[in-house]
């Protein structure tokens, strides 16, 4: 009996002590640029990676939201992204980098102002560019992101 107990304690300690460094996640925002709501780099160790397909301002049925309204489409895109992140077991805060494609680069400031409202625990790294065309007809932006979930 005594041996079995000791053995159980040993097994638990063995896994608890040694699995910690593998599952822990370290995250560091390198050179944050708060006025544009991004970081020059994000350093992450550990965790589960999530690669997202391009996300646009559409609802669950794939219908375009807020046609012609850039701020409305940014909000719709965050909502869409929230749905996907919830599905994979995370949240928007887990996003570490994003490439933002818009049909007009002059919307950059509006976009970064709206990104400030969404990211509270540190800004992801980011690239912002004008694409000639996006896949969803009428979409004014599309975001391609990578997230790292905490284990």
């Amino acid at each position, binding site marked *: 009996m005594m041996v079995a107990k000791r053995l159980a304690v040993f097994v638990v300690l063995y896994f608890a002590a040694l699995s910690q460094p*593998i599952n822990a996640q370290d995250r560091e925002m390198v050179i944050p640029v708060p006025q544009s709501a991004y970081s020059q780099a994000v350093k992450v160790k550990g965790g589960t990676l999530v690669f997202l397909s391009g996300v646009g301002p559409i609802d669950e049925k794939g219908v375009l939201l807020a046609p012609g309204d850039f701020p409305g489409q940014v909000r719709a895109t965050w909502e869409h992204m929230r749905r996907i992140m919830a599905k994979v077991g995370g949240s928007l805060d887990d996003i570490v980098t994003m490439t933002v494609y818009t049909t007009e680069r002059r919307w950059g400031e509006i976009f970064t102002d709206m990104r400030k409202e969404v990211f509270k625990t540190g800004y992801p790294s980011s690239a912002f560019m004008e694409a000639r065309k996006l896949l969803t007809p009428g979409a004014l932006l599309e975001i391609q992101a990578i997230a790292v979930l905490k*284990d």
Partner: protein
Amino acid sequence: MKAMKMWKLSGLVLILTIARVAMAQELKKEFVDPQLQEARSTAVKIKGGTLVFLAGHTASQPRPDADLGNFDVQFKAVFEKIGNTLAKAGGNLDDIVSMSVFLTDLRYTPQFQKMAKEIFKKDFPAMTFIEVSHLARPQSVMEVQPIAVLP
């Protein structure tokens, strides 16, 4: 009796150690919300494995004025090149988890998806399609930038 116990204990430690190492290294891949029609997954979730970030691949040839052929020919050339790159890294096309697809005309998208379906069968990477006005070579109609995870 005591020697027997020690023997059993050391056996247990060995098994646990092997289990731990296997747990840490085993690659877990989950294709979230696959869209068969579009040959892409909404997201791809990854735990473990070795990441490979590939450069943008085009059908370009050493001769700058080379005829790169039509869309289908370029698609085949691009994926042959990507396959070669991945082979050099110790993997293959099935290891791709995400792709940025830059096209000079988004009307090529359905054809791209049709041909991608033949490559990936059912485990589709996350994909983003963007129309750009120019690629590095004037003859190029597509550039594909993948991310792969090797077991």
